[in-house]
Structures are given as structure tokens and as C-alpha cells.
């Protein structure tokens, strides 16, 4: 600064208050425990430093030690003293008269100056005042600092002002620093204010020899009398060049009072600033002033010092410390930090927000609900809603981890859901938990027709619908199967992510429901694209009992809900972790499980995303099955979803549709002995008759009946490519119907498979189901049978299809005696030794689902016999005979009714009967599929006589003559001049020129050379006996001679 401008009024940099968080905590404690309603002045300690770097304001700090009497300032800091006026109300705070309290504080300074106390302890010159109000409910603090200072009647003016480094060279500074260091060594602390005894004046020239001494203020008189040159110094908190900090004001008042007269009102001052720079302490930025200070003897009337707030106005400040001090918020941030630790340490790609922001709906607040809620808390999930209708029972708290003994009562415990939510909040107040007392309407639980009860159920359904709507993840944790249905449906409709947990005694199931990938359900199942977008199944799509576990009586959730105590915890933990993994997966709930592969595509950063987790404690095993959605599922199929979308609540009131199924019993490889050798090469049920596999005729008939929604093939053929291929093509051909093959693990007798797969049959609650033996050929009018069953089903449970047979023949079949009026079956005998009845069992039945319960009883009986009678090891206890163990008992209880058909019927036991069946089906094509019958084309193609089926891929020479009753399979080649009659030519066979094939079956890929003659004996039912059937007797007669029959050429290998 230039000399001209030097003479100006000195301006001081005011203090900026800084408060360290510890102070507020101490204030809150003191207010609650010590001050209480006492709002008188309290003593405080503060401090400031002179070593701040450039750019920092002139700070004055208070920290958690402010209330301690013997508080020492932190290293490199200097003490200050203050008074606290903590008001009890915001009104007191606002209306407090600020002038007197500031004057009171200023007076303390003045007294210290005049008494000389401030000379002995110069830190008394730096005072502050804190006016505050602590709103401890909201953790809001209002405060206003003042740093009292006197306003001199004659302002202090500046004679000289410079940076220390501008006035003096390094030697001076080094000498000063050495003096300070020496002082510190001897006295431990440098005082806020001190004097420098120097051989030179502050602005004087520098001698070569420089030794300086730091002295206390009290030494002034002595040094002055000894004629030393004295520089006043103080530790300056300001960092701005040219402007000294606030403490100088009262320092000057002290000097003016005591010594300015002696100094002829000119005072030399060093504003000592000391900061580390380049590894050394540096004081070159300290300020040097030569000031003109008039003597003061009277207390100045005016004092100043109120601090401006953030808006740069004189006014209080306010700080919201809820985040720091509210235990609830502290818990929240602490929990979040802990979760982040997982992200930071183990998996940087973890997106915690995806999990914690998830709104979870827990349907059921029992052991699963409690444990899952706790695990969700651990993941930082803050929105948890629990739904339950029960109350806490005395047995609950030991297993249901959110309840305590005090929640139970002899007068009925607390309602579970609200009690659980309340406890969650106690565990973590940051959680937004709600408990809703609500029973979930269940299908099959009748509602009375009264308007109010319908309205009540509607209200419940609406509430659940709203809950499903307002949540992201739905946990199904109820103890009954039925109660899971409505939420499953609603979640499918609203495309919500469902996690389902069910417990057995020592087993558990954790699964996620599939989700439609599109908002709108595709109207048509356009072949391949829909195959790829296969959807995962829901709880109702999938058999809850895995195959092989049929020893268990019922599905998991249908069993008694007693389970080993740890099972719920295991399952709950797995359920929540499954949710976490899936939410981390890029495809979310649409992610496809791929347990075999570990590629990134298949798993999230948390690992694989299985569809189901099934665990068995008894053998410590866990399986991860994946099952596709079942197109006719009652919970998630498109039909149900769109029906609900269309009709809403009304849909729920409608009685279940009259839905039927069909079961085709296809047997297994050990059966069909009379069909050898043909049955060696193809499963007998797939042997083509009239161009179609045997069982396809049944499927085709069923597909024409609207009520039949599913066809289940049950047998013990191992799953093979052939069967798979057949199922695939049949599905394509009859896409209105579900077709599935359910393999038995071993031959279970004619009815064991029905029991084994009872859940599959019962799924969707069919009204009744057909049972077909695969190896019968018939053209039944199923519609009539359905009607007949419906007429009789009030009493009956089984409809048996019968047909008339000649007396002699009847004895090789199951014979039924009926009450001609009521059609009730009165007697049933399987292959009687003497004539019983001319009505024979056609191997086609209709069962009501209750028959499956009956099978359950038989199953249990067998299980018991196994132990009591040392049951034959080979005969599986699961084997059940349909004829002996179902039909016979039902006849005796009067629950079987007899439907008679007059349509042609035949068994297909032998090759000859296949030819006959071929004939029957071909003739039936006239009515049903006339396009399948070959026709004579004018001037082209072979000559057709009677019913002939030619596969479109076969090549038949135009000079051949075919028929009647001929089936030509795929890729068959028929040469010129060939004659085929009453025969089946199997795929790939070649019949060379001019050959003749009569009454024969030509095997796959067989080659019949030129001019050959293959001829068998026609084998047909006795044309003279009415209703005569094909007799598929032994191959040899009693004399050991081969009974003439058709000729079979086996497969050419």
C-alpha cells in the first residue's frame, strides 16, 4: 500500500462463526440434563487459529469442549470466552432484547481491561456471545453469534500498513520465528496477544545482528522503562492482506486504555499469521501496522459485534440437524452405508437402489412373513406391507420372529399384521411398514348370495387389487393353496413380480412366477416365436410334488403346516435372496433361469436366477427345477387373465367353467407283446393306423369336444425322441388343446399313473376326465358320452363305455351287467369264465375327480400291506389295477353307469387287428376327414378301389392298383403295376414293379422286389355273428400250428 493512502480508518475483518457438530450434541445434552428450563447466561469456551491458508474466512470456532471449564484450545489455536443464552422457546429467542446481553458481554471485556486482568490473561479480550434456541423435537437449532467489540469515539487510523515480507527481509522473520519457537518451548503455548522486544522498530531499518524476544503483556511496563523497542503482536485469524482480524479491536482498546499515552498514541502492531508452506512455517504474510490510537479512559458507550447470517443480513441462523442427531435418521444412513460396503467391497455393479426402492407386499405374516420381512430390512427395503387375518397365538412367538410373548393374550392376541408392522418399526424406525388385517378371498369357499356378503368380498378383492397395484414384489406366504390363487391372478394381470414360498415338514419350495413379457397378451400363438418366448410357470402351473416324491401324500401346502423350525428361515432367506438376484439381473423378473451355464447372460451379479428352489432337509438336497407356464393354468393363463380383465370381479363369482380333460393310458415297452415285431421298432401307441399314430385318433376325437382342454398321456415309455416328436406335432396340429406326456418311472398298473399324476389331472379343477386305453379303436360320439355322464353324475362317479359282443367272445373282455332302466352298472367281472353279460368294457371311461381320492385310499392300503404281508418286492406298491380296484368297488357302491355304443369297436392287440382298425378308421374318414381318402383322378394316378390312405410324400405309380383298406405311409415307393389290398405299407418301404401285397403289413424301409407276392390270410371278425369283434387270440392253435393270419414284414434294418 502506498504512503498516500495509508492514512485511513482501520477496518477489521469480523469473525465468522463456525460450529463443530459436537457442540450441538453437547448443547442438546446440557439442555436436557442440566439447563432444563434455566435460560440464564452459561459460560462457553471457543477458539480460533492464525494458521489458516489463504481464502479461508476469519473463523471463530466452538466445539464439543465448549462447555468444559478447563478446556484448552486445540493445538495451534487460541482460546476465547463466551456466554450462552439458550432460550426455551422460539418466541423467547426472537423477542430477546439483544442490546443488554451484548453490553453485558462487552462489560466483561471492559472490566478485564480496566482491572488489568486482561494484561495477565489476554485471552479474556476475545469474547463471544451465543443466543440460541434448540428445538430438540425437530433437531432444529436457531442461533446468533456476537463478537463484542468497542466502537472507539475517535476511530483508529492507519499510519503505515504493509505485509511483513515487504517491510523486512528474511532475517527479521527468521529471528521472529526463532523467538516464537523459543517461547513455545519454554512456555508451551503462545498467548493470543504478546509483545515483541526487538532491537529495531517495526518499520525501522534492520541491523545485522537481530535477536528478538517474545514477552508477555504484563512485562510491558518493565521493558518500556528499560527503553526497549516494543512491537505489539497478536495471533491474527484473518487471512486477507491489508485487513486485520477482529481480535485486534479489543487489543487496541486495551493498549489505548493502558499504554497509548506512553506511546504518544502511535502503536506498532504485527498481525502474526503463521502457516505451513513448502514444508516450513511461513509468517511472511503477517501484517505490520503503525496505528494512531487515541487514549480511552471511559468505557465506550457503543459496542458492536452481531454476526451477519448467510444472507449477509444481521439476523439469526438456523441449522437442521435431524440427519445428524435424529436416531432414526442415523440408523437409516448407517444401514445404507453398511449396504454400500457390500457394493464397494465385493460387487461394484450392485445396484442397491433397485432393491431398496422395491415395495414389497407380504401376504401372510406367519413364520415366513416375519422372517422375510426381517431379511428385507437387511437389504434396506423400506416399504413393506404385511397382510394377515390371524392373531398372535401363544405358540407363535418362538417361530414367528416378529412377535413376543406380550403380543399374545388369553383374551386373543394382537392382530398379526399390524403387530408385525409395529415391531418392524421398532427394529428399524426408518421402515415404512404397514399391517393390514384382511382375509384373502379364496376360490371354492362359497359366498352366500346375500348382497352384503358379496359386497364384503368385493371390498376385500378391491383392497387386495389395490395392494397388488401399489407394490412391486408380491410374496405369497399363506398356508393354504387356495388363498394363493387370487393374488397370483391379480399379479399376473398387473404384471407384478411374485415370489412364492411353501413349506413342508422338512422341505420347502421357493419359486418365482413367470411374467408376460408384453403388456398385451398376444392373441395368436404364432408357432415358433411364441415357443421362444416361453414363460415360466406359476405356482398353479406346476405340480407342487416333484415326480419321485409321490410317497408324500399331498402337495406341500396341502400337508399339515407343521414344519421343522429352521425350514422357514432357510426358505425365507432364499426367497429374499432370489428377489435380490433377480432385481439385479438385466432382465429382471423376465430373466430366464439357466442353471447349467455360468455366462453373464444367465445370472445377475449376485449369481444365478433359478425358477424354483426345492430343498429337502431329510437328505440335505436342493434342486433347481424350471418349468414352463401351463397354457390352461387357472392362475396365469392368458384365458383367465383376459377374462379377469374383461369381467373383473364378476369373473370371480362365476362358477368354474365345465372343463374336462382326457387321459390316454399308453402303457409301456413291456406291453404289446402280441404286436411284435412291430412294437419293437415303434412304441405301439404310435403305430400308424389309417395314416395316423394309434393314439392320435383319440386325440383327434377329443379335440372336437369343446370342454376338453387338456390331454395327458400317461405311460412308462421313457421319454424318447419319437414321443417328444409326436407330442410336438400333435400340439401344432391341435393347438386348441394342451397335450402332455407324463412318464411313469416304472409300470404302475393300469391306474397307478392316474394316482401318481393326480395333481396334474386335478390342476384347474376339471369337472371330469376321460380315460382311454391307447389300444382301442373306436369312433365314439364323445359328445353323447359327456351328456350321459352329466345326466348320471349326480349319483355316479364313473361312466363306462360298453359295447355289445357275442356271448362266446364276451368272456375275453371285462363284462358289465346293467340295470336296463337306470343304466346303473350292477356287476362287473373281468374276463369271466362263464357268460355274464354281452356288454363288454370298451376301455374308455369317464371319471369324476373324486375317483382320485379313492385311488389315494388304495395307495395307502397297498403301502400298509407292504409291511404287513411282506408284499412281493417286485410288485411295486404303487401298482393299481383300474379294473379290479376302481371299477369293481364303484359298481358295488352303485356309482358306475353304463353307456352303450353301437359304433364299431375293436381292440388293437395284434397286427391283424391293426389291419381291421385301419379299415374302421378309414371308413370313418368318410364322415370326418374325407380329404384324407385317396380318390381316383381321371387319366392320372393309380387306380383306387375302396378306402385308401396315401401319405402325401409317397410316390405311387399311376399304373398301380390300391385298395380296399390300404394305408401307404411316408416316403413309400410303389412301382408300376403293383397291387396292394387290405394292407398297411409302413414309411420308407419300397414295393417294386408288378408286386402284389395282400393282407400284410410291410415294415419300415422294407424292400419288396419285382414280381414278388406277399400275401397273408385275411383275419376279420366273424361276419356271421352280430357285434362280432376281432379275436386277437394266440398265434398258434392248440395243435401247435400257426393260425393263419396276415403276413408281417418287420422293419428292414
Amino acid at each position, binding site marked *: 500500500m502506498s504512503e498516500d493512502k495509508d492514512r485511513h480508518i482501520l*477496518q*477489521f*475483518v*469480523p469473525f*465468522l*462463526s*463456525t*460450529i*463443530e*457438530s*459436537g*457442540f*450441538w*450434541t453437547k448443547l442438546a445434552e446440557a439442555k436436557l440434563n442440566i439447563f432444563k428450563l434455566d435460560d440464564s447466561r452459561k459460560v462457553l469456551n471457543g477458539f480460533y487459529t492464525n*494458521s*489458516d491458508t489463504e*481464502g*479461508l*474466512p*476469519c*473463523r471463530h*470456532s466452538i466445539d*464439543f469442549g465448549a462447555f468444559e471449564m478447563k478446556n484448552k484450545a*486445540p*493445538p*495451534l489455536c487460541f482460546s476465547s470466552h463466551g456466554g450462552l443464552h439458550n432460550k426455551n422457546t422460539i418466541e423467547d429467542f426472537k423477542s430477546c432484547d439483544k442490546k443488554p446481553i451484548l453490553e453485558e458481554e462487552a462489560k466483561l471485556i471492559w472490566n478485564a481491561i480496566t482491572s488489568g486482568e486482561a494484561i495477565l490473561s489476554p485471552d479474556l479480550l476475545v469474547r463471544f456471545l451465543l443466543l440460541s434456541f434448540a428445538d430438540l423435537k425437530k433437531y432444529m*437449532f436457531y442461533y446468533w453469534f456476537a463478537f463484542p467489540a468497542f466502537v472507539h469515539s475517535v476511530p483508529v487510523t492507519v499510519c503505515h500498513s504493509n505485509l511483513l515480507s515487504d517491510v523486512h527481509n528474511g532475517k527479521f522473520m527468521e529471528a521472529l520465528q526463532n523467538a516464537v519457537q523459543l517461547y513455545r518451548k519454554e512456555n508451551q503455548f503462545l498467548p493470543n496477544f504478546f509483545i515483541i522486544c526487538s532491537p529495531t522498530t517495526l518499520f525501522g531499518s534492520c541491523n545485522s545482528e537481530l535477536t528478538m524476544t517474545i514477552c508477555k503483556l504484563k512485562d510491558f511496563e518493565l521493558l518500556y522503562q528499560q527503553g526497549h523497542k516494543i512491537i505489539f503482536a497478536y495471533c491474527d485469524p484473518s*487471512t*486477507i492482506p*491489508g*485487513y486485520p482480524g477482529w481480535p485486534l479491536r479489543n487489543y487496541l482498546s486495551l493498549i489505548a486504555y493502558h499504554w497509548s499515552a506512553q506511546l504518544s498514541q502511535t502503536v506498532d502492531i504485527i498481525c502474526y499469521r*503463521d502457516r*505451513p508452506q513448502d*514444508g516450513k*512455517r511461513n509468517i511472511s504474510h503477517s501484517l505490520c501496522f503503525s496505528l494512531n490510537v487515541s487514549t480511552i479512559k471511559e468505557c465506550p458507550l457503543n459496542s458492536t459485534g452481531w454476526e451477519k447470517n448467510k444472507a*449477509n443480513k444481521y439476523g439469526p*441462523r438456523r*441449522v*437442521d*440437524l435431524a*440427519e*445428524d442427531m435424529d436416531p432414526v435418521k*442415523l440408523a437409516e*444412513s*448407517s444401514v445404507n*452405508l*453398511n449396504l454400500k*460396503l457390500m457394493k*464397494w*467391497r465385493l460387487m461394484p455393479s450392485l445396484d442397491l437402489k433397485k432393491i431398496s426402492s422395491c415395495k414389497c407386499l407380504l401376504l401372510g405374516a406367519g413364520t415366513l412373513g416375519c422372517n422375510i420381512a426381517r431379511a428385507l430390512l437387511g437389504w434396506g427395503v423400506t416399504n413393506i406391507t404385511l397382510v394377515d387375518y390371524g392373531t398372535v397365538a401363544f405358540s407363535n412367538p418362538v417361530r414367528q420372529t416378529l412377535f413376543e410373548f406380550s403380543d399374545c393374550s388369553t383374551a386373543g392376541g394382537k392382530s398379526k399384521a399390524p403387530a408385525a408392522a409395529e415391531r418392524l418399526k421398532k427394529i428399524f424406525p426408518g421402515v415404512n411398514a404397514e399391517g393390514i388385517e384382511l382375509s384373502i378371498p379364496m376360490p371354492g369357499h362359497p359366498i352366500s348370495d346375500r348382497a352384503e356378503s358379496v359386497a364384503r368380498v368385493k371390498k376385500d378383492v378391491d383392497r387386495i387389487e389395490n395392494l397388488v397395484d401399489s407394490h412391486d414384489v408380491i410374496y405369497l406366504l399363506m398356508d393354504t393353496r387356495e388363498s394363493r390363487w387370487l393374488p397370483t391372478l391379480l399379479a399376473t394381470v398387473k404384471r407384478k413380480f411374485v415370489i412364492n414360498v411353501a413349506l413342508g415338514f422338512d422341505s420347502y419350495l421357493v419359486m418365482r412366477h413367470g411374467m408376460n413379457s408384453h403388456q398385451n397378451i398376444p392373441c395368436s400363438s404364432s408357432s415358433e416365436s411364441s415357443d421362444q418366448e416361453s414363460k415360466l410357470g406359476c405356482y398353479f402351473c406346476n405340480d407342487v410334488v416333484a415326480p419321485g416324491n409321490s410317497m408324500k401324500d399331498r402337495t406341500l401346502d396341502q400337508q399339515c403346516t407343521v414344519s421343522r423350525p429352521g425350514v422357514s428361515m432357510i426358505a425365507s432367506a432364499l426367497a429374499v435372496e432370489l428377489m435380490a438376484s433377480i432385481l439385479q439381473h438385466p432382465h429382471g423378473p423376465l430373466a430366464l433361469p439357466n442353471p447349467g451355464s455360468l455366462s453373464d447372460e444367465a445370472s445377475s451379479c449376485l449369481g444365478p436366477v433359478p425358477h424354483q428352489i426345492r430343498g429337502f432337509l431329510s437328505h440335505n438336497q436342493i434342486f433347481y427345477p424350471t418349468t414352463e407356464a401351463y397354457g390352461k393354468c387357472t392362475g396365469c393363463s392368458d384365458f383367465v387373465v383376459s377374462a379377469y380383465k374383461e369381467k373383473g370381479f364378476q369373473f370371480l363369482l362365476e362358477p368354474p367353467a365345465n372343463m374336462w380333460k382326457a387321459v390316454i393310458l399308453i402303457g409301456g415297452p413291456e406291453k404289446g407283446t402280441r404286436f411284435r415285431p412291430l412294437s419293437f421298432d415303434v412304441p405301439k401307441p404310435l403305430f400308424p393306423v389309417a395314416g395316423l399314430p394309434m393314439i392320435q385318433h383319440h386325440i383327434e376325437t377329443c379335440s372336437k369336444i369343446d370342454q376338453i382342454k387338456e390331454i395327458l398321456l400317461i405311460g412308462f415309455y421313457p421319454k424318447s425322441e419319437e414321443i417328444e416328436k409326436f407330442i410336438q406335432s400333435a400340439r401344432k396340429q391341435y393347438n386348441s388343446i394342451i397335450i402332455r406326456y407324463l412318464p411313469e418311472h416304472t409300470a404302475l398298473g393300469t391306474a397307478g399313473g392316474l394316482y401318481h399324476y393326480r395333481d396334474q389331472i386335478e390342476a384347474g379343477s376339471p369337472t371330469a376326465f376321460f380315460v382311454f386305453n391307447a389300444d382301442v379303436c373306436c369312433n365314439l360320439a364323445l359328445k353323447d358320452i359327456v351328456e350321459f355322464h352329466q345326466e348320471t353324475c349326480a349319483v355316479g362317479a364313473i361312466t363306462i363305455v360298453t359295447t355289445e359282443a357275442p356271448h362266446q367272445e364276451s368272456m375275453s373282455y371285462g363284462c358289465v351287467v346293467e340295470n336296463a332302466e337306470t343304466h346303473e352298472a350292477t356287476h362287473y367281472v373281468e374276463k369271466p369264465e362263464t357268460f355274464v353279460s354281452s356288454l363288454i368294457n370298451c376301455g374308455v371311461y369317464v371319471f369324476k375327480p373324486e375317483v382320485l381320492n379313492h385311488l389315494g385310499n388304495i395307495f395307502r392300503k397297498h403301502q400298509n400291506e407292504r409291511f404287513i404281508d411282506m408284499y412281493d418286492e417286485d410288485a411295486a406298491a404303487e401298482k393299481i389295477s383300474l379294473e379290479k380296484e376302481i371299477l369293481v368297488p364303484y359298481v358295488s357302491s352303485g356309482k358306475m353307469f353304463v353307456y352303450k355304443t353301437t359304433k364299431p369297436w375293436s381292440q388293437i392287440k395284434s397286427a391283424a387287428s391293426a389291419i381291421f382298425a385301419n379299415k374302421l378308421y378309414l371308413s370313418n374318414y368318410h364322415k370326418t376327414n374325407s380329404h384324407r381318402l385317396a380318390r381316383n383322378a381321371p387319366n392320372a394316378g393309380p387306380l383306387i378301389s375302396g378306402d385308401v390312405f396315401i401319405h402325401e410324400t409317397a410316390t405311387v405309380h399311376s399304373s398301380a392298383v390300391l385298395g380296399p383298406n390300404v394305408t401307404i405311409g411316408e416316403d413309400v415307393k410303389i412301382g408300376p403295376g403293383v397291387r396292394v389290398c387290405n394292407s398297411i405299407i409302413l414309411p420308407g418301404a419300397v414295393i417294386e414293379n408288378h408286386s402284389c401285397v395282400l393282407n400284410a403289413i410291410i415294415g419300415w424301409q422294407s424292400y419288396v422286389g419285382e414280381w414278388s407276392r406277399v400275401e397273408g390270410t385275411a383275419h376279420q371278425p366273424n361276419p356271421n355273428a352280430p357285434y362280432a369283434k376281432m379275436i386277437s387270440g394266440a398265434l398258434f392253435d392248440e395243435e401247435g400250428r400257426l393260425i393263419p393270419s396276415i403276413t408281417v414284414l418287420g422293419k428292414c434294418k
Partner: protein
Amino acid sequence: MATISEVEFGKCCRGLYKASNELQDGWDLIEPSESVYLSKKFIKAAPGSMQANYQIIAEVTTIECHVVYSPSYSCPVLYFTASNSEGKRLSLEDCQKLISPVYQEHLTSDFKWSFVTMQEHPVLLKPFYQLHPCHTTDFMKPLIELRNAKCVRNYVFSWLSVVLPVLGLNFRTEEYLVHFGESRRDGECDTLS
């Protein structure tokens, strides 16, 4: 594994405190009971501070660092808290913003440093941020060998020289090294180990 006993930790703290006093580095030694800890406040001006006439208008952040002994990990642990001039604690994210870009990169790339958790301060019983000590003893081994080569056997010093820069806080490593080196010549090496 390079661990340190509590007694040794106390010795190191006193050694560092003594050196800090001489270097005026501002470390404070707090001895509330048998256990001791070091404490220092770091002040930073938030970016965008400005000088209006003779006043500086700036948001000031105080970062308070405590060096506390962890008996379970047998090593020092850094507890820290940061607050603005009103005494409101800064969130961890805000703390990270204070750290200079050079160290920011360090913070994300070098995993073992970035485990910050919120813990109750073992002495003050207040929520503090904590640099998790689970890897401390692993990385200290080579460091100690390096320092031993210079005959500075102060575990706490060696540890601080690595830990503080992580938070973007200055530690005058070289000055201490010089200081300890001089003390050693004065025959004070033993008091530091």
C-alpha cells in the same frame, strides 16, 4: 500381517504428537482413559468462496480425523467426520466431493481404501465415518519395511502417511521424516518405536 499392540500404539501416538508439536502440525493427543487417540482438524473452504471487501464469504468444512486403536484388528483406525460451519455433518458423498480429483480417481480405483462405514466412535460414542481396517495390516507390512530402512519406526506415522492422502488431506510426511531423522541422530530413535 503387520499388527501393532495397544501399548506400542500409545507410544507411537505420543511420538507423533511430540513431533507434531515441534512441527506445529496441529495433532492433538487425547487421553480420556488408558487408551489414547490422536486428533486433528482439517479446514477446507468449499469451492466458490469469494472475497467481498474485507470479508471472505465461504462455506468452510471442518474435517475432524481421529486415529483410534482397534483391538480386534490390532491396528490404528481412522475415524472422521466432516461438518459445515453450522455444525451440520456432511454426507459421505459430500465428503468425497472435497477430495481432490487426483484422489477421487484413487478412491474409485483402489478398492481397499474405499470401505467407508458409519461407526460409533469408540471413545466419543458418536456416529463417525470409519475407514474400515480390514486390510490395514496387509498393506502396512511393506510400508513398515520401507520406513524401517530409514529408521523411522513409528507405525502410526507410516500409516498416516498413506491413509490421510486418501481423504485428500495433507500429511507432511517429508517434514516428519526429516524431523524423525534428526531425532534419531539425537539418540531418540527408541522412543519412537
